[in-house]
């Protein structure tokens, strides 16, 4: 299918592509224990305890300023890059605390990947180099590099669209394609967990749908945590949903339950649109 005659409703992505990726023996879980995060004096995340189950999509919803993005940035230790920011508590990846002083932070980030709200492919690199960037700058070369790039592009459903122009600049793609390129770049380094911070909010509905379908496949390989302000999206893609308010975790449960019969009154008021 050429890119000029894309149907209004995209074809379902090829499930086979995801299975070409190396299969992990067992899924990976992330547990947050008494997580607190500060921006200088401001106490942004107040004592969060939550477990993200392996090979599931967990959505974090909540009003602006509730701390959703801060929480995921604590998981892959991006929060500490902000001057004056600090974290207390533990984030356990399969039982190992990523904040242990003996841990190498770059290794943490290789295992816990992140996709950002605005697609950010590297502008000076081609499509191929973008996907390869995590690998190349860590030493992978030659045939193995090419193979992993191919697999990643297939897994995100971009291969058919770009295989004839891998040398074109990464920024020459459309917004939705760029975001899938960023996802390919993230999975090329073979992480265990993928964090997504409102990955579709800058995209049109068609591109959004494609990425949501991609998520359904990606969870076979990875544990996914997605921050979203779009409750319908959470209802569509997430197995479990967590509701946050003012830096605290209000409720976490199966998505259908959260949206139909939540335990907490604040959750109910949020999902029925009474505030936020």
């Amino acid at each position: 299918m050429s890119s000029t005659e894309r149907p209004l409703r995209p074809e379902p992505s090829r499930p086979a592509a995801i299975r070409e990726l190396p299969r992990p023996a067992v899924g990976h879980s992330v547990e947050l224990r008494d997580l607190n995060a500060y921006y200088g004096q401001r106490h942004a995340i107040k004592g969060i305890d939550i477990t993200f189950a392996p090979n599931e999509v967990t959505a974090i919803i909540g009003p602006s300023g509730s701390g959703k993005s801060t929480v995921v940035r604590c998981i892959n230790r991006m929060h500490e890059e902000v001057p004056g920011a600090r974290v207390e508590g533990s984030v356990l990846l399969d039982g190992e605390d990523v904040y242990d002083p003996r841990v190498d932070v770059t290794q943490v980030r290789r295992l816990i990947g992140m996709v950002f709200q605005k697609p950010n492919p590297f502008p000076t690199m081609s499509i191929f180099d973008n996907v390869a960037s995590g690998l190349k700058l860590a030493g992978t070369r030659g045939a193995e590099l090419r193979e992993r790039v191919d697999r990643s592009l297939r897994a995100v459903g971009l291969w058919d669209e770009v295989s004839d122009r891998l040398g074109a600049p990464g920024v020459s793609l459309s917004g939705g394609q760029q975001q899938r390129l960023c996802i390919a770049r993230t999975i090329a380094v073979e992480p265990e967990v993928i964090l997504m911070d409102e990955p579709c909010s800058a995209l049109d509905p068609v591109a959004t749908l494609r990425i949501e379908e991609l998520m359904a496949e990606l969870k076979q390989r990875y544990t996914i945590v997605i921050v979203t302000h779009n409750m319908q999206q959470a209802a569509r893609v997430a197995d479990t949903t967590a509701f946050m308010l003012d830096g605290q975790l209000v409720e976490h449960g199966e998505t259908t339950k959260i949206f139909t019969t939540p335990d907490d009154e604040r959750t109910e008021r949020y999902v029925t649109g009474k505030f936020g």
Partner: protein
Amino acid sequence: MEGSAIAAAPRVLAAGPGARRRRAVNRLMEAVSTLAAGLAVAVLGLVVVSVVVKAAPAISFRFITTNPQISPFGANTGGIANSIVGSLILVALATAMSVPVAVLIAIYTTEFAGGRIGALIRFALDLLNGVPTIVTGLFVFGILVLGARQSGWAGAIALAIIELPIVARSAQEVLALVPSSLREAGLALGLRRWRIVLRIVLPTALGGLITGSVLGVARVAGETAPLLFTTSTFSNLGLTTSPSQALPNIPITIFGLSESAAPSDHAQAWAASLVLILFVLLLSVVARALHERSRRRIRE
């Protein structure tokens, strides 16, 4: 317009009182600012035209390709080839010394330093930028020439000290323009800071860095005062390329030719000025073209 009762008052779209005066003031301001802009362009044009006119008798291909030959009357019957070569060498050495250091300073302040240290360094660079070039020349004279002798190295170092803050400040601005989302993407992939700077930030900022460097070159190409103390007495009239000796250069040559008694030398001084102006003009045009290209790139 008086506010009137509810339904009856008609809407008036015509101008109220004072509109004519406001329009006149507006037109006056437009005229004044256009005149000011025109004045700036006119001054530039005047300078270029007068240099061209006065240089006409002396400028020629021979002028730029022959070394000076002093006639028995003391006039230069040759050209200024050795000065052109000398200037190119001095500027090249100065740039080779200052640009890498300037870029490293910029990388340090934008990527690694805290806010306070970064501000301090920026302030220091601005101060260095404001030091009169004759003071810089005197400083280098005191350190390198006094007790030794004049040399191209001393001249190049003086020029490098002048070029450094220009390139560094420009590089800082350019690096700060690289979107932080690119750095975040690199960090999220598990890349180390230096790798991110070298492979992602610098390539993205390359166009702007080159523009800043070219502007720095354009600035020092015409500096005279620092060269006055460091490389102004030339031992011979032939081509000198070794920086361990005083290198002939265009600004000092202009100075020397203008002091001479022979009117033909004066024409040569103008011609040398024309060469210098053209060189700087060319660099500025190149810098602008690169700037446009890099701006388009980052906007994507």
